[in-house]
């Protein structure tokens, strides 16, 4: 066992824990060996969700068995299998992951615990919608659950941020594809209103859709955006390839301030200049379309020693104005932010901590540093809460307990279900403590 400093992807508030990489068989006994335990995947959550200060953290990296894919596209995998593994193995056989986040470096355990969503949420829902069954190690024993068997525990685990137990294995339903290419339509919009209108009326025609929005321009070009939408190319006799390794790396932390207002502004400008006004039917590789950032390894270090936060919220369809107000607030308060990601959401899961809701989601990358930032984000919380929305816990590093409870009013249900499998509250996390979801 070794003590290790664990960070989230934003590198903002690390903490030290004992870290082990157990096999699935070893997990059950370890759940009884320490007062506080948490599982961790690849640490791609941005804040403190996969940290447990002073406790025992079980990294799922030694749980890597992947069974053969059944002819119906279902497959049993260990929690440490990654989205990358699934694509590498599945794609040549004609199977793609049903949902992928913006990076392939995510474990199945992490994808279940955060119930991750992708560019197809408006059509296919989140990762949890494609989990057929899962095996969960809890302090009260190992339990298999599914949408039809112990459904409450199943849905509490989907999006439960690792707090119901350690996912050991899961059965996933993969998506049949006939090529490794995506056919993409790109459109540039000069303001927010026009892109939102187009997404609302036209997204249903595409499986994948996402818009990149500039949050640093004000006035007439406020919220100018690039919308990319696509579908898997249908070519039944293609030779399929899995995506390439990261080619460029960022080995050291850059001096803080490299990504300051000026350079972010320049980057955003360049991005817009380079985008075509309108391009249809462009063929893109799966890597380029789904995981553009995976090409630069450790890009998060570009934000320097103080790191960055991602603020992602969801609001109902009736609250389109909130998206506009949020971007306006950011642009006016002049806290630098990279291109924001705007997406349409479909319905969430029955889980008590489910994040998505039919409507909009916006994600913003914000370097830590500007004195106004903490307050601006608190103001955004109020806007989001007022609109009946919520903040995504997998990205959060700064929400306060009262706002969390208001955004996730069903948190008591999670705790109730948790008590049935973890009566002594062995499983907790820095996130759960910060949100006062668990006071241990």
């Amino acid at each position, binding site marked *: 066992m070794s*003590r290790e*400093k664990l960070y989230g992807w*934003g590198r*903002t*508030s*690390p*903490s*030290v*824990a004992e870290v082990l990489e157990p096999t699935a068989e070893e997990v059950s006994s370890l759940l009884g060996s320490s007062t506080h335990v948490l599982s961790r995947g690849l640490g791609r959550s941005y*804040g*403190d969700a996969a940290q447990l*200060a*002073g*406790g025992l953290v079980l990294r799922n990296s030694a749980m890597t068995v992947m069974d053969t894919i059944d002819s119906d596209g279902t497959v049993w995998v260990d929690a440490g299998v990654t989205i990358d593994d699934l694509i590498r193995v599945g794609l040549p056989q004609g199977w793609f992951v049903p949902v992928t986040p913006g990076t392939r470096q995510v474990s199945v355990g992490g994808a279940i615990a955060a119930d991750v969503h992708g560019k197809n949420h408006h059509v296919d829902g989140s990762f949890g919608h494609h989990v057929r069954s899962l095996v969960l190690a809890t302090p009260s024993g190992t339990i298999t659950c599914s949408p039809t068997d112990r459904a409450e525990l199943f849905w509490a685990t989907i999006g439960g941020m690792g707090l119901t137990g350690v996912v050991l294995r899961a059965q996933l339903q993969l998506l049949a594809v006939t090529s490794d290419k995506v056919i993409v339509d790109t459109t540039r919009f000069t303001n927010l209103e026009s892109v939102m209108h187009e997404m609302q009326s036209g997204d249903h025609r595409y499986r994948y859709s996402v818009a990149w929005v500039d949050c640093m321009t004000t006035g007439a070009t406020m919220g100018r955006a690039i919308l990319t939408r696509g579908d898997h190319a249908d070519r039944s006799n293609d030779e399929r390839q899995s995506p390439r390794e990261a080619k460029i790396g960022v080995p050291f932390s850059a001096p803080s301030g490299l990504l300051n207002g000026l350079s972010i502004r320049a980057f955003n400008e360049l991005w817009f200049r380079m985008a075509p006004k309108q391009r249809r039917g462009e063929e893109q590789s799966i890597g380029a379309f789904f995981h553009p950032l995976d090409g630069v390894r450790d890009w998060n270090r570009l934000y320097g*020693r*103080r*790191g960055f*936060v991602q603020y992602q919220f969801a609001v109902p369809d009736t609250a389109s104005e909130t998206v506009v107000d949020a971007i306006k607030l950011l642009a006016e308060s002049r806290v630098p932010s990279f291109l924001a990601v705007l997406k349409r959401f479909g319905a969430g899961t029955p889980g008590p901590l489910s994040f998505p809701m039919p409507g909009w989601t916006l994600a913003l990358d914000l370097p*830590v540093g500007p*004195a106004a*930032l*903490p307050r601006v984000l608190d103001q955004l919380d109020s806007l989001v809460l007022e609109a009946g929305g919520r903040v995504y816990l997998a990205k959060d*590093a*700064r929400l*306060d*307990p009262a706002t969390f409870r208001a955004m996730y009013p069903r948190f008591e249900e999670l705790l109730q279900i948790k008590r049935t499998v973890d009566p002594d509250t062995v499983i907790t996390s*820095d996130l759960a*403590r*910060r949100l006062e979801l668990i*006071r*241990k």
Partner: protein
Amino acid sequence: MENAFGQPQTVVVLGGSSDIAREVTKKLCGARARTVVLAGRNESLLSEAAKEASNAGATATHTITFDAQDVTSAETAVAQSFAAVGAPVDLVIIAVGLLGEQMLDENDPAAAARMSIVNYAWPVTALAALRQRMIAQGSGRIVVISSVAGIRVRRGSYLYSGAKAGLDRLCEGLADSLIGTGVTLQIVRPGFVHTKMTAGLKPAPFSVDAERVAKDILRGLGTPARIIYSPSIMKWLFALLRHLPAPLWRKINEDR
């Protein structure tokens, strides 16, 4: 737990009734601090500070009394403070200090001892009592209120400044000892601060009030800075002053 901006939720202040401590506490409660333990000498001042903290947003306040002239009280005060929080302690502030009366104290062995105990020995004892507790937590922050006076000790306040110098230098080593533990220690070096402690003294250049120091401390909490100066110009001023030739140093301090 501390959030991404270095804003703590649980705070222990040793020397909680000092003007600087009170300002810092108020500001912390205006951000994320909800559980606050104020430990110090004067119960009625501590209660006042606790009331201020509640008004600023704290939901649970506790007061604990100790006498910093007695080093054996340090361990008890720390143990009681951690027990009162009952959860990981995100931030411990050490703001214990005594300015004394140099001209009277310098020929009085008991007074000289008192100056070094309150300003040095007690804080060092408290830090020793804290250290293992914080390391076991795997997270947390310690802020020690030092002074620019410790950067170069002057004739007119060598009992106070000398003790601060010792504490300040010791904390640099202590901070190094914490690397990799998840615990960080930051040293605050304010310049001349208008407080009840310095009332009646002739202010030095760039003097500030406690509110300003609190603001600088809060800003510093969100950064990896080992040393927080307040006002920040002190950093450059003392980079210069510490290398001033001795006669010149004495000369500019003649009337102080």
